[in-house]
């Protein structure tokens, strides 16, 4: 180790090493540069932070057709739920009041019912019980569950106005403040 110490103490030889590291490092940075579009940057659909939210078109409880990508330009909360899941039940009132608070500022909530594990009557009763006013699309064949790699209910995906996922919350219930603080960051980007 004493040889190493002599090397470190020597301003000329150590200085040369530092400069060498700096030059090699700069060359490495130069060779590994990429256009911003080559990294995640939202082009690939995948259910995780930094990726485009996988798109879907489903029929809602009200009988309308909803396409996720039509909601570009708004802050969107995609919540996957089922009426038989207790934590989903526990967080629905928080979603509803967050919706009432920020709907006018450009918040959309898309609460996809896992209809293939649930049934439509129970989902309807659930929506009536809680007085839900946001869109409730029905995933009848599990397409959205597969697209979003659903592994726990509820799962919530916060999608920015550009269609890119900002935050993912697996499991619940989330508190109203958790929802609203996350949403308020996205609302700042809404035109």
């Amino acid at each position, binding site marked *: *180790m*004493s040889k*190493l*110490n002599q090397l*470190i*103490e020597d*301003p000329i030889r*150590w*200085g040369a*090493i*530092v400069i060498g*590291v*700096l030059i090699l*490092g*700069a060359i*490495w*940075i130069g*060779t*590994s*540069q*990429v*256009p*911003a579009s*080559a*990294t*995640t*940057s939202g082009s*690939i*659909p*995948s259910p*995780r932070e*930094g*990726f485009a939210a996988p798109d879907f078109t489903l029929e809602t409880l009200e009988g309308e057709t909803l396409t996720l990508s039509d909601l570009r330009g708004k802050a969107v909360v995609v919540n996957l739920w089922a009426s038989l899941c207790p934590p989903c039940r526990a967080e629905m009132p928080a979603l509803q009041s967050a919706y009432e608070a920020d709907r006018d500022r450009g918040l959309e909530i898309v609460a996809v019912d896992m209809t293939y594990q649930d049934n439509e009557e129970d989902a309807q009763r659930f929506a009536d019980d809680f007085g839900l006013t946001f869109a409730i699309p029905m995933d009848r064949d599990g397409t959205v569950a597969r697209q979003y790699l659903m*592994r*726990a209910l509820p799962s919530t995906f916060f999608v920015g106005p550009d269609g890119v996922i900002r*935050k*993912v*919350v*697996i*499991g619940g219930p*989330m*508190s*109203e*403040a*958790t929802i*609203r*603080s*996350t949403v*308020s960051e996205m609302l700042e980007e809404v035109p």
Partner: protein
Amino acid sequence: MLPILQAGPIAIQMPGLILLAGVWVAVSLTDREAPRYSMKPSTLSNMILIGLVVGILSARLWYVIRFFDIYLENPLSILSLNPTTLAPLEGVLTGIAAATFYGYRKGLPLWPTLDVLTPGLSAFGLAVGFAHLASGDAFGVETTMPWGIELWGALRHPTQIYEVLAAGFIFWLIWEIRRKTPFSGFLFLTWVALTALSRLLIEAFRGDSIIAYGSLRSAQMGSLVVLVIALIGMHLLSRAQVQGSPS
């Protein structure tokens, strides 16, 4: 990738569990190393504990302050914890500040203290690599190399595995040289330099880099700065300690 381990009714978040194990290993290694530096293991583990507790609480507090009006309407939600409602950077900085203040009050010397913490830090670095492996975070860019792994909808460089290998090598090296260091601060700065070097190299294969100045990966530029500062720091420390010592 094993983000969640289902143990009967309990869903265990693997990345969190791995990081917790990393903290435990880091504390036990520090306990073992302390006597060689004539330090009390309890003072050091208290310092780590204070850093962690203050770090987590303040990460929460900074987040609440940022969204104060929302939490004012729902004050009980301040207690509703969720990893997404933390301000990580502010938490880490406040935790380090608290640990530093405690160490200063206890009269711990700066560089020997950093050296005694280094084996633990490098073990924790290994745990971070394994946590990334479990969660699939810090993922690679798309590749056609035969060792690419299928992740997030594409065949990608297994950057988490590169990270584990690099961190494993760094841990092994630090462990080997920890008793043969020429001056105090050497071990810590070696760890800083190697960790910065590994980030500088591996970042080139990452698929989630933050890009600055058009096409440059910002983490690489940061790593190169840290690496150079660590090397210059070694030079300054070695000269200062030669002049300071009676021989």
